[in-house]
């Protein structure tokens, strides 16, 4: 597989993180921000074994590791599809109602993802940098325009239904894209520690900017908002008579496609490693499995604890076992 640069690595993962944030449900408060920041820090700490493993020159050799990450990527890809269905009820997407609508929208995304995966990770990562840059500009516009509508007392007004530990867990789970983090880190140029540190720092900044924007704009009506980030984007308009939601809608679609494409490309890569003779329809198989997983997992977003175990397993347990195995083999 081709090697990608640090910027490309960060762009691929940050797009997935941003999309997961767009689809975030429930109240956002200062506790949420603190919880998310702590969750990101925890992720970074838990990523040490895999960083150490790659720093020692380790690779994705073992079949069982490949299978675990493949399953993880399929499940996370399925959750991304499910998130997209939920938000599409809120931001109008034509023909998206009902089972057929979901299938149609998923099919469309799958077709674009299939095309993207056919061009390979190198092309996807190049495109992701441009998409992330466009997203950053749009986020900047939304953030700046939100300052004109800022209600600073929202910080005290917005209340979180959960405590710090639960918000931390939520923030920890929110980045289910850590499966692709593990896979992509192995093919990123440069030192794994630096690559990971920069990514987590950028992720922290992104999370804080998005959540703070949501609080200062939509904090007062957080109770009534299904998706606080989407509501914040709709309310933070730079001009009094001109709305810019169209920008957000397009970015939402682009990020949805790229997020799922990242899971498709990485899972198809692992599928090829698991079954070397299975070459032609790897991406198609991955996408079909993801859509199947989406139907199975739709509506299970509240089972945060179960998901947090899965994330912890992907980020800490499996890499730790890989690292220990490598040390033992080296010791012999």
């Amino acid at each position: 597989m081709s090697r990608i640069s640090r910027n490309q690595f960060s762009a691929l993962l940050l797009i997935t993180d941003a999309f997961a944030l767009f689809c975030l449900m429930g109240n956002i408060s200062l506790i949420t921000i603190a919880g998310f920041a702590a969750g990101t820090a925890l992720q970074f700490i838990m990523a040490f074994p895999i960083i150490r493993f790659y720093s020692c020159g380790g690779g994705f050799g073992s079949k069982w590791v490949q299978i675990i990450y493949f399953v993880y990527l399929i499940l996370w890809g399925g959750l991304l599809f499910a998130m997209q269905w939920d938000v599409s009820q809120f931001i109008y997407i034509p023909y998206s109602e009902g089972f057929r609508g979901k299938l149609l929208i998923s099919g469309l995304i799958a077709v674009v993802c299939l095309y993207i995966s056919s061009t390979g990770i190198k092309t996807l990562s190049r495109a992701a940098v441009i998409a992330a840059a466009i997203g950053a500009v749009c986020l900047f516009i939304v953030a700046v325009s939100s300052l004109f509508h800022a209600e600073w007392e929202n910080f005290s007004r917005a209340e979180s239904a959960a405590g710090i530990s639960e918000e931390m867990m939520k923030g920890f789970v929110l980045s289910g894209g850590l499966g692709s983090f593990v896979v992509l880190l192995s093919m990123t140029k440069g030192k794994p520690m630096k690559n990971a540190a920069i990514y987590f720092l950028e992720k922290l900044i992104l999370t804080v900017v998005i959540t703070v924007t949501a609080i200062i704009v939509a904090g007062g009506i957080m109770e009534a908002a299904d998706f606080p980030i989407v509501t914040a984007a709709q309310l933070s308009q730079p001009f009094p008579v001109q709305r810019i939601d169209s920008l957000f809608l397009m970015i939402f679609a682009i990020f949805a496609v790229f997020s799922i494409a990242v899971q498709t490309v990485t899972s198809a890569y692992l599928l090829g490693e698991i079954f070397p003779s299975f070459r032609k329809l790897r991406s198609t198989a991955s996408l079909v499995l993801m859509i199947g997983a989406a139907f199975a997992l739709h509506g299970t977003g509240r089972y945060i604890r179960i998901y947090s175990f899965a994330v912890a397993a992907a980020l800490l347990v499996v890499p730790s076992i890989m690292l220990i195995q490598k040390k033992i083999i080296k010791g012999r």
Partner: protein
Amino acid sequence: MNNPDYEKLPIIRDLSQNIKKIKEISGGSSDVLVNEFVTGGIKCAMLICEGMLSISVITELVFEPITHILPKKDSRELFNHIQDNLLLSTDRPEINDYGTLFHLLNSGFAVLIADDMDKALAFGVQGFFTRSIQEPSGEGNIMGAHEGFVETIRINMSMIRRRLKSPELVMELFVKGGKSKTDLCLCYMQDRVPKELMDKIRSSLDKIELESILSTGYIRPFVENDKFELFSSTGTTERPDVLCSKLIEGRVALFVDGVPFAIVIPRLFCESFQTLDDYSFKPYYATFIRWIKYGAFIISVLLPALYAAIVMYHPELMNSTLLMLLVESEKNTPFSIVTESMGVLLMYEIIREAGIRLPKPVGGAVSIVSGLIIGDSAVKSGLISTPLLTMTALAVISGFVVPELNPSVTLLRFAFLAAGGIFGLFGIGLLACAVLVNICATEDYGFPYTAPLSPFKAGGMGDTVIRSGMKKMQSRGFTVEEYHE
């Protein structure tokens, strides 16, 4: 493509048999003239292709000295004398086979054959009529030179040499086309272009087995990627000054005889927005103009689609005044917005095509009929709404700001309109992803089309996001090799 039988056939020694063979190969073509004469006591013949050479030059520089040669022992001594003692022209190749003989003869050379001689001598006295150098029609420019390439390859080569006098500028002439025998010329700065890249380009060109090469479009697929690419990864220019700047940046140019354009390899997406005038004006103005072009590109591709998507599916995005205005104008039109937009765009494409193909005076009439009569009456009769016509016209005019991308932009405009008309902004977003990935996948000889944006090269931003001052650019010493992956 197999070469014809005569290509490698050696020249026949007997003059009468030789002439018979030449007439047989040429099929007795009226423009191949055979002038038999005796010089130095040897029977000879001078072959010329009528209309391809200068009669005054051949009379003065070739016929005059060649007919006054003193008697020679045999034809070999005669040829040695002509080659060693007479400088009849600057280009004097020796010919051993009929393939070369006909290639040179049909290129405007005078060919001398003699009795009992298995060789022929050619003299470069070309003098066919060519179009004079004129201002390029497609690459307008205010402050730069007003010279454009012409159809004659050697004049084009001289236009480059006149601007780049460095010995590092290499021009490699070669012939392609089984029947047309078209002269092609690879042009590059040998100190700027890696040898591996040149080898790859040469090997791509070796795959050409066409019978004729009549435009750059015949060659470009051979030097481009085989994958489906929306935008071309090679460029063309009809301006010698632009080509010189490309050569200095380490690019390779390819001239085709008979075509007033040069192919530039590789081409980057951002280059489509750069013109020579950018470097003639102040940097702040050039930067402003460049961003106008970026904006025009986006408008030309997306405006009709955004209009259709927002009016049909997301009217809440418009302010009330605009919404009322559009509702008022659209309620009187009989067709849906997508049908209307498609119709207007198709009508425009038909009018444009008619305007190009028709003789110029009639072409002007077409513009009047289409613009004033059809456009005006379509709006007045209520077939098309005024806002939609305005949006479409703005999109079409914006497309002309970046003419090189116009063919791709035209098709993308239709595709985005369909996506926006069916699936709203979500559809536009989906298609934008596919187009973005396609552009990022465009790559030739290891040069990504989207460089320096992605892969990101900070050094390249000085001539992409802004246009830095000339002093700053001078210190950078840029070559396109910086973007190679």
